[in-house]
């Protein structure tokens, strides 16, 4: 079942008393296709959580509509939208056992007790929570709580899942593992999932498609490869990739009248001699990360970060030439849009 928003606008009028109104969503159009994992990514304050809360019905948009399975649910109560949500803080009831937490939504909907027991057992089995059913949330680790929150969403068999930064409270190792678990779980369930995160790695590794939000506006939507290889603007270009894309000013028309920005990814730049080099600069820092090194080079056009094999990395204060293939250069116009 698809999840879509059309022209969604949300303005917070009084964020800090007497402050100016804040546009959280400036007319967003977006559709998560049936069975798709759509990642909504953006920096903090980009409106991604507000978008998710509008879809869930926890926020009322100022204008625009929300569709779930092609039904306009804009004025439908959250409980009647048939979506399940996983919160960043997990929102587990601390006084209720794991089993009680998982079954909460079913009990609220007066599902028959036999059916509840069956579904709780199978969901707990699916997420490896079988031994924890009688524990209470304060007795669980962060990863276990996260799984309980997922189980509570899955057990209801909703049309779609909404996940709001579900991994942000986990440590790095567990985050990587859970990322893969959620991805395969979503594939098995075959349900639409809207996944909000600020982490570009989660966006790139998990999403069938990625929607990039900034200041309440949709900057680009596409497959992770699309977004990486053909960023729609300088913001998207520098948001994805670690280290971010190197940007430098240039003029691109024969008479130098059109100002532009060129971007080149750190892995697309090679370090070599001065002959035939496109740019020449001084090495100011070399960060070694295992087999790779990130080389910081200050050139006339600004600072460049270059990914190089550790053995090929130059030493500090060397003057080096930088080269890159013209096809790997991204060109953006004066407004930062891709040309």
């Amino acid at each position, binding site marked *: 079942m698809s999840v879509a928003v059309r022209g969604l606008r949300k303005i917070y009028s009084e964020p800090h008393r007497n402050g100016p109104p804040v546009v959280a969503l400036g007319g967003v159009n977006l559709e998560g296709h049936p069975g798709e994992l759509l990642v909504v990514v953006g920096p903090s304050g980009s409106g991604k959580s507000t978008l998710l809360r509008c879809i869930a019905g926890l926020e009322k948009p100022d204008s625009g509509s929300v569709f779930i399975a092609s039904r306009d649910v804009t004025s439908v109560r959250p409980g*009647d939208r048939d979506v399940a949500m996983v919160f960043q803080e997990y929102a587990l009831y601390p006084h209720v056992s794991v089993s009680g937490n998982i079954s909460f939504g079913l009990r609220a909907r007066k599902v028959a007790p036999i059916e509840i027991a069956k579904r709780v057992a199978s969901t707990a089995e699916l997420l490896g929570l079988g031994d924890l059913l009688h524990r209470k949330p304060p007795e669980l680790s962060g990863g276990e709580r996260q799984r309980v929150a997922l189980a509570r969403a899955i057990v209801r068999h909703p049309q779609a899942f909404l996940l709001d930064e579900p991994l942000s409270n986990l440590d790095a190792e567990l985050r990587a593992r859970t990322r893969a678990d959620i991805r395969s779980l979503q594939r098995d369930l075959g349900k639409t999932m809207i996944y909000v995160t600020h982490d570009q790695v989660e966006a790139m590794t998990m999403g069938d498609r990625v929607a990039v939000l900034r200041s309440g506006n949709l900057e680009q939507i596409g497959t992770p490869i699309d977004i990486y290889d053909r960023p729609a603007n300088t913001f998207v270009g520098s948001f994805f990739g670690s280290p971010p894309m190197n940007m430098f000013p240039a003029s691109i028309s024969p008479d130098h009248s059109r100002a532009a920005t060129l971007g080149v990814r750190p892995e697309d730049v090679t370090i070599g001699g001065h002959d035939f080099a496109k740019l020449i600069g001084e090495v100011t820092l070399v960060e070694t990360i295992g087999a790779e090194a990130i080389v910081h080079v200050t050139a006339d056009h600004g600072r460049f970060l270059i990914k190089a094999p550790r053995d090929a990395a130059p030493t500090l204060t060397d003057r080096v030439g930088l080269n890159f293939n013209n096809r790997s250069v991204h060109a953006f116009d004066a407004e930062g849009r891709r040309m």
Partner: protein
Amino acid sequence: MSLRSRPTPAFLAWPYLVGIVLLVVIPVGGTLYLAFTEYFGIEAPTFIGLDNFGRMLASDRFWTALGNSSIYVLIAVPLRVAGAVGLALLLHTRSAGSSAARTAVFLPTVVPDVAYALLWLYIFNPLFGPLTLGLEAVGISSPEWLVDPATARFSVALMSAFQIGEGFVIALAVRRSIPNHLYESAAVDGASPWFTLSRVTLPLMLPVLALLALRDVIISFQANFVPALIVTEGGPRLATFFLPLYVYREGFRYGRLGYAAAVTLTMFVITAVVVVIQYRLARRWRLV
């Protein structure tokens, strides 16, 4: 150079400790001693062992007062706790008028007891009291609040149900400490307001409600003295003749200070026993 020694906590506490000793420890000690004496306030007290307690157990008035006080506690405590929690749940959000309403809830608690009692004497007036007139205006025949023994005890409990400012503030703070995402999660899960109240809000507030109830039992055994003295004078037909009024009459009207001390001590023991039972139950139900 060494740092100047700072005053220790014990040193800082001494003004408070002096107050406790003068105002609590010495009177309690005095009561404890006088309870075993015959003392009319003129001659020195004479030790009479357990005679005061024997007389007390044989006194119809004592049993009437104890019965009245127990009924009062059974009515007033649930009324007060339910009132404090109910109002806290209604008024915890920041909406238009809610802060004025919160102030209004607290206000009766800071009105001096005697003024408050006189105000209720007016409210309960069977001829021109606003409560009577209000009920009659909507076609309900008003009970004779303070005249009928059956309603008089309830009327005094009703008076106390509006002096709940402290319990209200505590309940308000507890309600506000429950994270909002629990409610959002319940809403997305399709929980009705009643389901959310009974499965989320009240269970999470319960430990504090149990403590509020404990505290209210202690207060309610004593707090009916002013209304019983000023509004009903223990009547009609001893319906509001509570233990504190009994102590007051015996000690200060009839001058039987030793006997009054024995009743006070008994009141203290009864309160302590009730509180211990409540606490044990709360512990068994894992509420505190």
